[in-house]
């Protein structure tokens, strides 16, 4: 079995700065990590490696520095790592990103694609499902469990009410929830080897896709305005009965010149 895991490097903070001109994230000076849901996805793939001898390839699209999370993936146990990096990929929204990743996937041999549910920087949860659409394969999102009997995959899909058990055969794409798959630590031996191994660096020419679908050109999303969410002040709780509550509300509204 061959598993392709899509991972993303994200800033390790909730205090994300946004470039006021380009409206995109400023990554400089912010420590970067492997996106938690993606790490959960890698963990799931590595469990399949432990159990069924699956071959695990990790792929990421990003700047050259994204090499770091691929080294981390090596040290956790991944077999092969691909870095999609090219100026032509820059400025990609989720559609262009999923197009690029799907384009790369078309040139690779795999049985299963695993992505994280969503990345903590954008929180869109779109790239995985879009990839499945581009590749025309079944997808199951919000995966919290996976089993395999040699032919059929049995998937536990988290829903708001509980979970569903779904089955499929053949190729498919899963988007994974990090809390369901507590990721392993990098092993010391894996770390020692991580920088001796080859990360394959692919440019846009290696991806099976029309260049017009890549990067800023292939991104229909237009960000009108980005702004930092303002913090609301903590509220005050008044323990009063209904009659006094009306008076209180009116006085407060008057205080603020609302009425």
């Amino acid at each position, binding site marked *: 079995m061959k598993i392709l895991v899509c991972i993303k490097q994200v800033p390790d903070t909730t205090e994300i700065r946004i470039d006021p001109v380009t409206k995109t994230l400023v990554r400089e000076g912010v420590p970067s990590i492997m996106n938690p849901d993606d790490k959960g996805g890698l963990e799931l793939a590595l469990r399949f490696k432990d159990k069924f001898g699956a071959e695990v390839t990790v792929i990421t699209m990003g700047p050259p520095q994204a090499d770091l999370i691929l080294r981390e993936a090596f040290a956790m146990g991944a077999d092969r790592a691909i870095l999609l990096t090219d100026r032509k990929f820059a400025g990609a929204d989720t559609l262009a990103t999923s197009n690029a990743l799907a384009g790369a996937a078309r040139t690779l041999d795999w049985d299963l694609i695993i992505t994280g549910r969503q990345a903590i920087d954008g929180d869109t949860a779109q790239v995985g499902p879009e990839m499945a659409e581009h590749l025309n394969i079944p997808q199951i999102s919000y995966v919290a469990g996976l089993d395999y009997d040699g032919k059929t995959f049995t998937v536990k899909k988290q829903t708001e009410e509980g979970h569903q058990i779904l089955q499929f055969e053949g190729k498919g794409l899963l988007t994974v929830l990090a809390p369901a798959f507590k990721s392993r630590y*990098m092993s*010391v031996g894996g770390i*020692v080897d991580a*920088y001796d191994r080859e990360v394959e660096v692919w440019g846009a020419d290696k991806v099976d896709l029309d260049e017009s679908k890549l990067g800023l050109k292939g991104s229909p999303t237009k960000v009108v305005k980005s702004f930092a969410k303002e913090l609301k002040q903590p509220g005050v709780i008044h323990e009063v009965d209904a009659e006094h509550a009306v008076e209180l509300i009116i006085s407060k509204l008057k205080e603020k010149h609302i009425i």
Partner: protein
Amino acid sequence: MNFNLTKTQELFRQMIHEFAEKEVKPLAAEIDEQERFPEETVKKMAKLGIFGIPVPKEYGGAGGDNIMYSIAVEELSRCCATTGVIVSAHTSLCMVPILEFGTEEQKRKYLPKLASGEWIGAFGLTEPNAGTDSSAQQTTAVLDGDEWVLNGNKIFITNAGQAGLYVIIAMTDKSQGNRGISAFLVEADTPGFSVGKQELKMGIRGSSTAELIFDNCRIPKENLLGQVGRGFRIAMKTLDGGRIGIAAQALGIAQGALDETVKYTKERKQFGRAIAKFQNTQFQMADLQTKIEAARLLVRSAAFKKDEAIKNDRIAYSADSAMAKLYASEVAMEVTTKAVQFHGGYGYTREYPVERMMRDAKITEIYEGTSEVQRMVIAGNLFGKI
């Protein structure tokens, strides 16, 4: 000259830091309180390869270096000094002498078991009458046919009772003095070998510290480590390396106590403001951080020299490791004592970790050579024979 960690060392630091925070820290108070050896943590560390950091891959190790090893002990000790010393004694005092002085056969037989963490290692030099004067060995080893017969007692042995293999120093020819001392490898289940009473300690209370008893303990002739009569040198060389581990442990304890104090002084309000806002707090803490960083440079520099010495045996690091241990352990004592002071009454209670760190710090000034021994080593290097 480059003070940066390599990419590999940095990746390792991130892993071990996270491991220590998530897996080691939550148990630190409990194993101290219960004086319990943290078997569950040992298993986790074994799985990750933490017990085989500087051992080459051909012997089942991770193939890392001594900088990585020192970072491991530092980061583990930042959260739990007990966990730090388990790794340190195992690595520096048992695996490394086998790696450096063992025969190819001994390396193939023992290193994979030790590096994988299947076996923990220990080292026995100290005796009731041979502490700082470690050449006054009373444990004897006599060759009888194809076996060495060991008799005597060792005390204060870290990892005793938990270890699968012990490097043991014993007298083989009293008339030769230091040159009559030899080193041996003793497996835990050897008849005639037993573990005596556990010491009740002030600090590092989760680590096992006990007596070793040899009562006509017979080991195969091939379990001699190095040559006959070279045991004292093996022990001293082993401690040169071990001191880097203890220095790293002290450094970790100091950093842990400082980190706790930064956190506490920012939260704790007196006279209407956080005590971190008082210049007395800031200046004292600035001095402590400076000392910690100086200690870190000494530790890393000694570890770097040890790595260089592996490639070139003309490089000596004995004084470097002594200076690292002397300085880092005294800094650890100072930082932890002041950390308790900054915490005030709360710091004296077991609600906060700094009192444990202060108890743990003290041993780093004592074991693997007291601060006085380190000064002897440093002065010996400085003056030569006077």
